[in-house]
């Protein structure tokens, strides 16, 4: 019974997303172009080389494709929350018979489910046809990859929600979210495998949550993270998800008590 209303919220969100076909085609086009740029870029990098720090061209392209796909699942819920706060809608939302964070989470799951079927799958087919994606190394890695992807997507949503909650404190959250985007782009491995980074950078990223967003799942797929490292990496992801979940709740509970709603 409790869960039912959230399922309904997720389902209605899927319908809302389906209504914006123009945006759907625009983002499909834009991601396809990004894939082509990556393809030509890496082709040029590997012009006179067979490997770059142990990574072959086909592995690099596989990494680039999967990382680009995963990057599509970044954020969304936090922006919605920030919007509610900025325009005062949050006051009404807080009166409604659900936990606002759960509602946003449910809508986010809805959006991401439809993104997966409507965008990720067709884009993967395009990538396989024109760019080339290596098959997975083993059945176990596929299994671990799937779990890791779900955790990564959940963590991305939670980080985004955290930034959204921060807009209780700063009214215009746009800059903050762009900053968040830049940090994640660099530190998650969304554009380049973290193993290519200088050592000190890799050490830092071990202690930060961002690698769990893109690098970990994709590296599990490509075999960059070897069998013995797979489950510990997933445990670390799980720990980050737990930590952020609690932190967002606490911060939200605290912020709500101090909320000032503008006339909206």
């Amino acid at each position, binding site marked *: 019974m409790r869960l039912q209303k959230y399922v309904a919220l997720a389902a209605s969100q899927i319908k809302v997303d389906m209504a914006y076909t*123009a*945006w759907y*085609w*625009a*983002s499909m*086009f*834009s991601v396809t*172009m*990004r894939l*082509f*740029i990556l393809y*030509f*870029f890496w*082709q*040029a*990098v590997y*012009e006179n*080389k067979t490997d*770059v*720090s142990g990574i072959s061209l086909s592995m690099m392209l596989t990494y680039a494709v999967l990382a680009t796909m995963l990057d599509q699942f970044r954020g969304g819920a936090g922006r919605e929350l920030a919007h509610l706060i900025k325009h005062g809608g949050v006051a009404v939302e807080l009166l409604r018979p659900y936990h606002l964070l759960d509602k946003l989470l449910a809508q986010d799951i809805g959006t991401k489910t439809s993104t997966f079927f409507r965008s990720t799958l067709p884009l993967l087919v395009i990538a396989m046809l024109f760019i080339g994606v290596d098959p997975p190394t083993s059945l176990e890695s596929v299994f671990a990859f799937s779990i890791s992807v779900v955790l990564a997507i959940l963590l991305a949503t939670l980080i985004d929600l955290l930034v959204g909650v921060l807009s209780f404190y*700063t*009214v*215009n959250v*746009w*800059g*903050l979210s*762009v*900053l968040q*985007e*830049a*940090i994640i*782009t*660099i530190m998650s491995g969304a*554009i*380049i495998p973290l193993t*290519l*980074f*200088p050592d000190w950078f890799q050490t830092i990223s071990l202690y930060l949550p961002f690698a769990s967003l893109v690098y970990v799942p994709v590296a599990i797929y490509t075999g960059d993270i070897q069998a013995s490292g797979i489950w510990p990496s997933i445990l670390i992801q799980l720990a980050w998800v737990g930590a952020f979940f609690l932190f967002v709740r606490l911060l939200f509970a605290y912020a709500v008590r101090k909320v000032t709603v503008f006339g909206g």
Partner: protein
Amino acid sequence: MKRYAKLYWLYAKNHFKVMMEYRMDFLIGVLSVFGQQFAALFFLSIVFQHIESLNGWSFYEILFIYGIAFLGRAVHHIFFDNLWTIGWQYIRTGNLDRILMRPVNPLFQIVAERVQQDGFGQLLIGGSVLWLASNELGMSWSVMDVIVLLIMVLASGMIYIAVNLFFATFSFWMIDSLPVVFAVFSLSDFARYPMTIYSKVIMFVLTYIIPFGFTAFYPAMYFFEGRGFTMFALATPLVAILSLVIAYRFWLFGLRAFASTGS
């Protein structure tokens, strides 16, 4: 002309008043643009720690191309950012009707209603990148070169503006063409790298159809010796003017066809 300059000044003054009200946001905005651009540069520098050249281009040559792209984009971003919002801020809301009532060029009003301060961050970073790259490449700058650089940057900005205006004009028929503008602008990322790494088809599209090649790569070729493409480099200002003329004509055509949403 003088009247327009005075009007623009009034608009800008108002805008700066608003900006000073949210000083913190201004800082965050500039900082975030830094972050965005930094990500792109960071990516490139990491890759170049593992290779010596990309299709024959050195790191600093590519940085130089980046620099021109940033500067051109900054021109567009600071002064013409409102072109992005024509659909949802003017046509959908009926705001355009208000603007059409006034005895001033409607496009001017739309453009003047916004100065995007974040673009100053872009200007700063583009300038520094260009300076760094030209130092490392051992380029010498005569007065003439500097003038050409300014013209090229302006031309680059004009092309961004023209493409933005052309596709924003579709809003007259589809109410909000922002997704189309967004999709077309994703092509501009191709322009960051030397065009020689792409296939013939892509080069053709970026040269003759959506001329993003003239926002960075071709103009940069004016400053590199022995790399070819000189004719294209010299054509940059012409392409910019031609693009703007086509885009503005299309805008006028759209404006005549416009029927308000009536809201």
